[in-house]
């Protein structure tokens, strides 16, 4: 295959978007999970489920 004389094609925009998107996706899921867990822990505390923890 003949390489273009100007070097590789400029496809960097797609690569930048893909790397940024993947980082947002993974971080977003981790934040979502943390937020869900915080809500559940708060409700557990209110309903008395955390009582045994504080006593422990």
């Amino acid at each position, binding site marked *: 295959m003949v390489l273009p004389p100007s070097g590789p094609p400029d496809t960097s925009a797609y690569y930048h978007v893909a790397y940024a998107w993947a980082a947002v*996706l993974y971080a977003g899921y981790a934040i979502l999970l943390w937020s869900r867990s915080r809500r559940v822990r708060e409700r557990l505390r209110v309903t008395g489920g955390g009582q045994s923890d504080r006593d*422990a």
Partner: protein
Amino acid sequence: MTSASFGGEASAPLSVSQRAPLFDWLFVVAVIGMAMAYVRAIFFTPIEALQGAAQKIYYLHVPAALSAYISLGVVALTSIVYLWLGDERADRLAESAGEVGLLFLTAVLTTGPLWGKPIWGTWWTWDARLTLTLFLWFLTAGYLVLRGAVEDRAMRARYSAVLGILAALLIPFIHLSVYLFNTLHPMPIVLKPEKPSMPTEMLVTFLGFFAACTVLCIALIRARYRYGVERDALRELESAGGEGY
């Protein structure tokens, strides 16, 4: 297994899980590993001569696909364990792995078109591998929707275990689809019987990304499992409170 034993098991690990942070040392290792993999791929890996910088999407795309396979493999194995032993921990682990599997499948199905557009000239094609991966995404999403739709815990676990096992059966077909069908998707470059057809510096980047992504996958499944323990304990407390009234 009776529903009473579910409650007993759910409330027992509560105090332990509440004290344990949601994200532990493994998650920290995964974040550091992913950051290092990003830096290596962006700054220390050469640009491929024909595809240009878009080829670097490979380092994200393929490890995400392999992590999705691992997650859905865990769903299948733990579903088999649940159907065999009726252990609620296996069901909770299957649920956790299913959710994380959907995350990685989403990464695969979104980074793929970003690579395909500059190289194939199209965002999407109804090629065997792409279509089967999309089917797997829908099946995994359906698996999670099913879990949310069935009230009875034992029935939910049983139905979703069967769906989880059936969904995982697609994985070998997806991997072999490039051999079985006439497809636009490239053949495996690393996961094949012969030596990987990739320069060493690119292969090291790929393996680093794969290791970091696998650790991230395990760390997220662990965190999601911990959340599941807390949520089940809360449900147990609330239902016990409701019965009291």
